[in-house]
């Protein structure tokens, strides 16, 4: 008798569980899709997102603290000092190395380097992944002599 009972209960459970599953999928049919239309609509990154750096050149005092703090040595800075005048000639970050750890931004005394919201900087060449943040300047011969570059 138990065999007969199992048979019928199996048939019933087969149908019933299928219906339960169908009710669940029907609920999802009418729920809001989670798709992000990425290339068309850019997603908003979180407030403290660690993306490509934002560099404020006018604030920078050329102290190399960020380059020293960097655990992977990806920041390269060039500075020309003339009295009180500071010229940032070079501020390159190599994003092949950068691991977005935020350690460069913390020690900066002038608060001139931040982690930004940008993340689309993929490149087809190795050179393309090295971003130059300092505005390009033409240097005089004298300036070239005194330019100090913190090597990576």
């Amino acid at each position, binding site marked *: 008798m138990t065999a007969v009972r199992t048979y019928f209960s199996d048939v019933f459970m*087969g149908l019933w569980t*299928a219906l339960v599953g*169908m009710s669940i*999928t029907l609920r*999802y049919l*009418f729920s*809001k*899709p989670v*798709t992000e*239309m990425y290339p068309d609509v850019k997603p908003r990154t979180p407030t403290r997102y660690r993306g490509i750096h934002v560099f404020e050149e006018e604030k920078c005092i050329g102290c190399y603290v960020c380059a020293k703090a960097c655990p992977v040595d990806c920041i390269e800075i060039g500075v020309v000092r003339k009295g009180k005048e500071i010229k940032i000639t070079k501020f390159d970050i190599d994003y092949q190395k950068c691991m977005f750890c935020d350690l460069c931004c913390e020690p900066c005394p002038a608060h001139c380097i931040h982690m930004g919201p940008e993340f689309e900087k993929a490149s087809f060449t190795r050179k393309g992944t090295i971003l130059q943040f300092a505005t390009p300047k033409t240097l005089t011969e004298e300036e070239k002599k005194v330019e100090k570059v913190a090597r990576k």
Partner: protein
Amino acid sequence: MSELAAVLPGVLEKAGWSVPGGLVPVLAMFICASIVAAAMGLSAAVLVWAERKLAGHFQCRLGPVYVGGKFGWLQSIADGIKLLLKEDIIPADADRPLFRLAPYLVVLGVFLAFIAFPVSEKLMVADLNIGIFFILAVLTLEVFGVILAGWASNNKWALLGAMRAAAQMVSYEIPMGLAILPVVVEAQSLSLKSIVAAQSGGMLRWYVFQPPFFMGVSFLIFFLAGLASLKRAPFDLPEAESELTAGFHTEYSGMRFSFFFMAEYAGMILVSGLAAALYLGGWHGILPGQSGAMWFLLKTAFLVFVMIWLRWTLPRLRIDQVVYVGWKVLTPFVLACVLGQALMAYK
């Protein structure tokens, strides 16, 4: 079709074309065949789009969105063009004539079945007096196409898929055929037109809702067996992607592949339409007195939706489970239904 053949000479005369009298039935046949073929191709295109769209939304995605504006409604046309332009590859070790023959056989089965497809009282190619029997018989042709495809591909996945298809389709033909019997007993006819006509007069006269629900149960069985014979999930073992690459059509590409595809989607419409005609009152509306092709198409569309819904709900069964359900569950239940309905008719 006979009506078309009767009207055709007058239309041709008006148009000023002279056609010899013997050619008129041939012309009528040709017109009907092209309408059916066009409807099959178009409905397959629409269904592929609907399936992808629904599948997306069932999984909280969007489905196609880019081709042709907001809803991606040109997606399947783009896919169709892609399939047409693709190279038609025949493997070096394949059995060439059989390999070429197989997709035509598969399409032919479904295509022929549409002859007796009852869209509305007037809108059917031919009202055969053995309509439903004819459809079932012709649908069986598809199995030959599938087995040929698997065998001629000379590929182990294809052969395994074809063997599964054969086991599954043959074992599910039986409950499918038997599930029709209660309806035939009740309507006293095999012609789809008179079966539908017997269900006129509102929703409560439909055969699914007739107490003591022998026909209601056989509707369920017909639908499930139809799913299995269409090789649709959860009975899609013959093409089980994760195990057999693509099953019996692994080696097919381009247009030949799309023939299998088209046959599957046209088959969905066919089985849904048959279920609608046999059990859900065909072209009759919900209230008494309502009728029209629209009702039939609505019911068919709903059943097709249920098929898609099931596919994105249930995981694939194992082959032993499939055969178990076919022989040990559906067949005894449908036999009980047939017996019950026959006893009721006996009086």
